[in-house]
């Protein structure tokens, strides 16, 4: 090399030494040398030297050149960070208990937050799966006695008038849920469907995947025999047969043409719907009751308003066969249904509601009885999810608390860890690690922890969401649409980043402020060592306060739930089997055929071994009556009162023997018995709430009341209130009538589906096979829609409060554990840091009790301060829970007391362990070490 070095001109060589990567210098110098000589020949020595220098400089930008200063710095920083990550990873593995606690905390907090946020996002925030869903709104007609009866839709006269003369909606459609038996398939199938105005599909802007939707004239009589199938029904019952459009289907007693198949995922109004049929828009003057519409409340001549209610819930969808054709009594009855429309451009729901109220005022037959009706217009999404918004936001708040507690806890753990490692840090600083590198190291550690925690949390979220979906609380609409989508993932990452920042920066700050001298001098740790313990105490206190708020909330929800499940339902739900059956309309056209079938059925069932009683009723005792009528009653002693207001009561038709079978006896008078024959004087039994509502008298036996069709009923008995279990199980105002004396108008409504109740001696389900066999023997055409024990159904009816109570309880337990870990971790370090002080005190003769007491005082002091703050916070926050609580005040002192006791017990346990450790310190050993 020595000979060759001389041939490169000195300035160029000097530049190459500085600019060229040593690994390639040989190659480059060779080329520069050769080129130099070529150039000397061409342009002379000086210019060749000049060009050699330019060549040397030009090398710096290429792969042969040395990296520039900024490149080098970036690479160096990156390499350092990688090294820090490796170190941090090793350090975390060396302290498995710390790492595992932090990771579990992170995973649970992030997982719980992701699940709840996914649900909130999918259910509340994401728009409905229709085109411009914000313009779709639901109409609600309010007024009269039915105001407090919950949503039930609007009358058809409002719908028709509004559609004709209103301007607020581009399009309006009416629909009404029904269910019917399809008999043209291999075996009869009960399907849930909905009768709709043909405009519905235009409002929702959906197209079928096959065939077409209804023509506009499908709402006229004679054109209404089409049917649309849901994608699911098409797959299930027709094996995805692509030639199904154009074929026919026997639905109830009618033959219908299959016009089309709707796309997968189209679920209006909900996912249980399997078909859509046209709804007639006009009714003949003397209409026949379309019993298909489960909320078609025909109003009887006397101006009483009758409303059939959705029979959903525990009894299952059990509306009578829809589209079964004209049949039944003649009367002027008005159809009610749900009304949905697409708002015209620039029209707000409030403006539309105003127009609707004006239209209602102009309708004669709506206001003839002096009722003031108003229209309410709600965006469809709000109407769908309005009922779960509060509970879901409450869950989100609860889960947010869990996250805050988790963050405080982790910050605390890391702070404690940094205190423990003060000496290590000091040594690192002493041998030249700058503040920057110390901060970088702590950040690397938190980054590793959050990344791992985030991955675990996401796994927990996937698992948790699957668990919640499979739990399938059907009171939460749209739950099937929920998934962990990118937005939610983004939220998780945001949570992770925030967490990393919170508990990464705190110890980094501690590291940056480190006082080298003091740290190195503090040999084994002295009381002065817990520099930032004030801040850590604050963290623990906040954590405790948050946990206490959650605990109080959980306590209230749980005790409310316990109250719900332990109320006396008013009948005996044990050993009671329930079957929902449907009689084919063709074979059972009238009351006589139904009654003779019921007689035969009851006789047959009661002869079965294991069955002690059997009966038939229009509704199960645990579900609200599916027909409500406004009745004005008056006492026989009083003069007729023109101002008497009709009271809405539930009508329950029962077979004689009903009360015996469900285990209810008369509180006053008598119950219905087999002697109440059709030709006898019509009688009725009232529930206690019904008696009070109608007569203002708990014992109106002997009184009479006017019923539909001019019937005059004698009250022969009063039974104690039966309660339908649920969130708001108010006692039902019910009237019980014997089937045999049913007024003609009620017949088609009440007879088509029937609830069979069977009292059994052994477990109810063990009798089910023989019950089914008996049903088949009597008439194989009778369809069993559902079969279950009443006990199970009653349990199902509290699924909603149970779901929320158990989730919040889980969160509360989680936060209680976290808070306990927080207290424990805090005190354990305090004891550790104070080890020398304690040793000296012990050596000077301080009794064990005093030392134990000192630590206990310190820990329990924190617990009490946090508890007090939490109780005060809970006192104000719990008001938001009020609507979810049953028979319990949001400030229930008992719940607050129980929670306080539980919390103090846990806190004591968390304090006790480190306190005991303090007393076991051996002064000699510690002081010798010093």
């Amino acid at each position, binding site marked *: 090399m020595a000979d060759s070095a001389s041939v490169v001109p000195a300035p160029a060589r000097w530049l190459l030494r500085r600019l060229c990567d040593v690994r390639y210098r040989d190659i480059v110098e060779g080329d520069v040398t050769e080129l130099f000589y070529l150039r000397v020949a061409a342009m002379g020595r000086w210019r060749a030297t000049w060009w050699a220098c330019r*060549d040397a400089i030009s090398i710096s930008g290429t792969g042969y050149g040395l990296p520039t200063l900024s490149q080098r710095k970036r690479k160096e920083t990156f390499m350092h960070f990688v090294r820090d990550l490796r170190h941090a990873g090793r350090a975390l593995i060396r302290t498995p208990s710390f790492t595992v606690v932090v990771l579990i905390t992170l995973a649970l907090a992030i997982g719980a937050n992701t699940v709840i946020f996914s649900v909130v996002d999918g259910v509340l925030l994401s728009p409905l799966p229709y085109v411009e869903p914000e313009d779709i709104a639901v109409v609600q007609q309010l007024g009269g006695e039915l105001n407090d009866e919950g949503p039930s839709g609007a009358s058809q006269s409002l719908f028709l008038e509004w559609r004709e003369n209103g301007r607020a909606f581009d399009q309006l459609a009416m629909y009404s849920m029904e269910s019917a038996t399809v008999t043209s398939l291999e075996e009869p199938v009960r399907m849930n469907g909905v009768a709709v105005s043909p405009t519905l599909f235009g409002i929702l802007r959906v197209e079928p995947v096959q065939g077409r939707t209804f023509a506009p004239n499908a709402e006229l009589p004679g054109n209404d025999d089409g049917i649309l199938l849901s994608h699911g029904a098409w797959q299930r019952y027709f094996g995805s047969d692509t030639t199904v459009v154009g074929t026919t289907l026997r639905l109830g007693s009618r033959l219908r043409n299959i016009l089309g198949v709707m796309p997968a995922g189209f679920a209006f109004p909900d996912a249980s719907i399997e078909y859509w049929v046209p709804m007639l828009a006009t009714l003949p003057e003397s209409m026949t009751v379309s019993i298909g519409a489960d909320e078609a409340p025909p109003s009887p001549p006397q101006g009483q308003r009758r409303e059939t209610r959705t029979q959903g819930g525990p009894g299952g969808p059990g509306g009578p066969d829809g589209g079964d054709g004209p049949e039944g009594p003649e009367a002027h009855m008005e159809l009610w249904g749900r009304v949905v429309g697409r708002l015209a451009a620039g029209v707000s729901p409030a403006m539309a509601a105003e127009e609707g109220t004006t239209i209602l005022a102009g309708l004669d037959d709506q206001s003839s009885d002096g009722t003031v009706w108003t229209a309410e217009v709600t965006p469809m999404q709000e109407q769908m999810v309005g009922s779960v918004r509060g509970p879901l936001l409450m869950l989100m708040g609860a889960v947010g608390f869990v996250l805050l507690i988790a963050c405080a806890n982790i910050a605390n753990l890391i702070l404690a860890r940094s205190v423990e490692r003060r000496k290590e840090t000091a040594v690192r600083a002493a041998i030249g690690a700058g503040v920057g590198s110390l901060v970088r190291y702590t950040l690397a550690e938190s980054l590793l922890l959050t990344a791992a925690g985030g991955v675990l949390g996401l796994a927990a979220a996937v698992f948790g969401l699957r668990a919640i979906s499979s739990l399938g609380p059907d009171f939460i609409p749209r739950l099937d649409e929920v998934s962990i989508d990118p937005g939610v993932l983004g939220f998780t990452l945001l949570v992770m980043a925030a967490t990393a920042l919170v508990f990464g920066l705190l110890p980094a700050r501690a590291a940056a402020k480190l006082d080298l001298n003091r740290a190195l001098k503090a040999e084994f740790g002295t009381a002065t060592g817990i520099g930032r313990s004030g801040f850590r105490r604050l963290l623990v206190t906040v954590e405790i306060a948050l946990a206490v708020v959650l605990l109080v909330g959980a306590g209230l929800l749980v005790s409310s739930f316990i109250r719900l499940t332990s109320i006396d339902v008013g009948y005996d739900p044990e050993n009671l089997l329930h079957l929902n059956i449907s009689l084919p309309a063709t074979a059972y056209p009238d009351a006589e055929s139904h009654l003779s079938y019921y007689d035969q059925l009851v006789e047959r069932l009661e002869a079965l071994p294991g069955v002690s009683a059997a009966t038939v009723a229009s509704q199960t005792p645990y579900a609200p009556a599916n027909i409500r009528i406004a009745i004005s009653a008056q006492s026989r002693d009083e003069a007729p009162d023109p101002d008497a207001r009709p009271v809405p009561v539930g009508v329950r038709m029962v077979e004689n023997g009903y009360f015996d079978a469900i285990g209810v006896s008369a509180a006053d008078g008598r119950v219905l018995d087999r002697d109440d024959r059709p030709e006898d004087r019509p009688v009725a039994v009232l529930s206690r709430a019904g008696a009070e509502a109608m007569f203002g008298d708990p014992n109106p036996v002997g009184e009479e009341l006017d019923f539909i069709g001019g019937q005059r009923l004698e009250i022969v008995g009063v039974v104690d209130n039966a309660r339908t279990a649920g969130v708001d199980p108010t006692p039902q105002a019910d009237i019980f009538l014997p089937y045999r004396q049913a007024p003609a108008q009620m017949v088609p409504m009440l007879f088509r589906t029937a609830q069979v109740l069977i009292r059994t001696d052994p477990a109810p389900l063990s009798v089910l096979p023989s019950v089914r066999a008996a049903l088949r023997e009597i008439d194989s055409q009778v369809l069993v829609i559902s079969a279950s024990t009443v006990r199970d159904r009653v349990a199902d009816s509290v699924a909603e409060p149970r779901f929320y109570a158990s989730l919040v309880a889980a969160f509360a337990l989680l936060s209680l554990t976290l808070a306990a870990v927080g207290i424990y971790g805090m005190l354990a370090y305090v004891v550790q840091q104070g080890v020398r002080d304690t040793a000296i005190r012990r050596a000077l003769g301080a009794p064990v009790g005093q030392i134990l007491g000192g630590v206990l005082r310190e820990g329990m002091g924190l617990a009490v301060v946090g508890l007090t703050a939490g109780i005060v916070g809970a006192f104000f926050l719990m008001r938001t829970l009020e609507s979810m609580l049953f028979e319990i005040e949001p400030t229930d002192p008992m719940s607050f007391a129980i929670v306080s006791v539980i919390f103090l017990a846990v806190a004591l346990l968390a304090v006790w362990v480190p306190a005991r450790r303090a007393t076991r310190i051996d002064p000699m050993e510690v002081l010798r070490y010093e």
Partner: protein
Amino acid sequence: MLAVRARGNDAYGVTVQQTIEASASRRVTLGAVYSALERLERKQLVRSRMGGGEAKQGGRRKRLFRLTSLGIDTLASARDARDVLWGLAEVNDG
């Protein structure tokens, strides 16, 4: 690339630089040549190996480049494309 091809088995920094300088009649620095060759190598159009030492390099070893088959194909298709465009241009002119 053409320069590498033109030098056949003797394509390295200096020869490539000389070829370009001769054909383009302008001065080119060694660094510019190196970074061009680096880019080509990254795209796998050329590959390099270390050659033997030579007296004119002061006995140092040099880095020899040659076209890969991908490079040969790319060159051919570039030529075809250019020929087609020239053909079109000439038709227009004519």
